[in-house]
């Protein structure tokens, strides 16, 4: 429920956490752990790295929380913005050593090689297609459809206007559609 709208309980937790209450912050962490992890995983493509980065993001949130004010910016969008910055920083420090494309692990949800191949083929193709896109395109698609954020929240997370996000998503979907078709052609 928290992930859809800021409840009173969430606001109280944020207030307590901002005042230094670690347990309240722990509750927020548990609530947002999976969506933030999922977002980061889709951006970095490697499980262990995504776990490390998720923890790092929440450490940064803890440091910045006393500066957070509601002011119409939803906590969730603010959280994703910090996650976005962490991913960008991470990409900048890692880009010289490891190519992003090589980091995707194929075993997610696998019960065995054959089952994986059958069940995840389309998803895997889609992920590969996603990876070929411009970083901004990846960002907007992951935030919208993987993280399930509204256009307004994506705008906050990406530091753009809502109109720009809609236009970006429009172009990103077109690019993904073409890239996905190419990936399908490749394996045929």
């Amino acid at each position, binding site marked *: 429920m928290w992930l859809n709208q800021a409840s009173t309980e969430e606001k109280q937790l944020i207030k307590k956490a901002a*005042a*230094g209450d*670690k347990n309240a*912050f*722990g509750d927020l*962490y*548990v609530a947002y*752990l*999976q969506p933030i*992890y*999922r977002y980061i*995983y*889709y951006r970095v493509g490697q499980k262990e790295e*995504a776990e490390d980065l998720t*923890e790092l993001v*929440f*450490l940064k949130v*803890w*440091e*910045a929380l*006393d*500066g957070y*004010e509601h*002011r*119409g910016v939803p906590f969730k969008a603010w959280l994703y913005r910090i996650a976005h*910055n962490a991913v960008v*920083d991470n990409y*900048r420090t890692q880009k*010289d050593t490891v*190519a992003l*494309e090589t980091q995707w692990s194929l075993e*997610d949800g696998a019960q065995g090689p054959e089952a994986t191949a059958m069940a995840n083929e*389309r*998803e895997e193709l*889609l*992920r590969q297609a*996603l990876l*070929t*896109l*411009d970083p*901004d*395109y990846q960002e907007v698609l992951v935030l919208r*459809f*993987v*993280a399930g954020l509204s256009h307004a929240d994506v705008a906050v997370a990406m*530091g753009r*206007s809502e109109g*720009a996000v809609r*236009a970006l*998503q*429009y*172009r990103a*979907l*077109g690019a*993904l*559609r*073409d890239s*996905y*078709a*190419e990936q399908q052609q490749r394996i045929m």
Partner: protein
Amino acid sequence: MAKNKQVEWRYRHDGDPASFEQDAELAALMQLLARSANVQPSPQFQRNARRQLLEKLPARASPEPSWLAYLRNLWQQGQIPQRTALAWMLLLLFLFTTLFATGGAVYASADALPGQALYPVKLGVEDWRLWLTEDSLARGQMHLTYADRRLGEMEQLLATGNAAGIQTAADRYIQHTNQAQAQLAPAVANAGVMALTNTSQQTFTHNELALVSLIRQAPPESWGSLNRAYATTANAREAAQVVLLTAAADDQERAQLQLQFANERLTLAVALADLGRTTDLNQVLADYSQRVELASALIWQTDVADGLLADWGVLLSHHDLVLAEVAQRAPIAASAAIAHAREVSQTGRQVVEAIRTGEEIPGPPVQTGPPVDPPVGPPVDPPVGPPVDPPVGPPVDPPVGPPVDPPAGPPIDPPGGGRPPWSTEPGGPNPGGGQPPWHGGPGGPSRP
């Protein structure tokens, strides 16, 4: 084939980006995206995540100060005489009463706006916290946070049309931005400084956009203070970018940064086009063109991984689409600058493709616009671009009122400083004799 498909797709959806949701094929793709988002952290990580994070959290506000624990220990051990204990209790009662009254005011002041009675308390607490912070990096971060608060206050004050309040908040915003910028040019650029610089660059870029949005909504009497805030932010952002470019490990990273900054300029260009700010739009587009030209020159003379080149090619294609969007929204007086930016972007893409395929670049040299000046940093002076009409909407520049402090970053050469447009080193030789280094004419320099 794929291109035709994309053209057909655009045709079907042109003019109504939202209509893609009714496209069966794309709807299926979106559903697939959402359905495939089932990845989860490992069970072990999930099990221990909370405990491990809480162990790593630094204390912010200790529930029991150490001196209190010390006193309690003494009391429990019977080392405090009864009369002394009574005196202590009275003293503590007095202190708590005073603190409660003061703390209440401080707490209540958190939402205060300029012009309200508790606003000075709010600023006083912030100043006090800054004064108590010895670490210059932490102080820089605090200045960024407080500048962000002032922006928020300006947003709230817009609703009331309180021009005097906006000016107060804008003046404080300028102070904090200048102070944050001052932390970016230390004697030693260590990892902490670079992290702060990176954060500052992103924040300043975001604030520039936010201020354009504010100017769009603000009453005329607030334009002066908001313009100054905008100009200060632009200076600070440029200074941060110069530090990042100077500290870049190699030309590849420098090219990557230039493209990133060019990308951010385009985002601002879209907002300025919407606002009808021709002068600023021309300046931003000139900055964009210069960065892409410099990135292209760097890419040309550096060995770049093929995967990265492909990314840059895609990015520059994306720029072309955005510029087409800007062209649709912008005043006619910005047409020349937009056309130049598109030409530069397309040439950049050709450079990338030429490197990937090993072919020569066709067509005339790309340097068709005004001469560019700084080698790695952004321009400070207004671009010598095409003539522009006077602004139609709220003016963003030139700033009105007291002068804005100059950036504390590395010095940026004045226009016409004698460096060739394609030089990528300060004072370095011009590899193309006034032409881009990839120019394939007779006797022209070849790619290293």
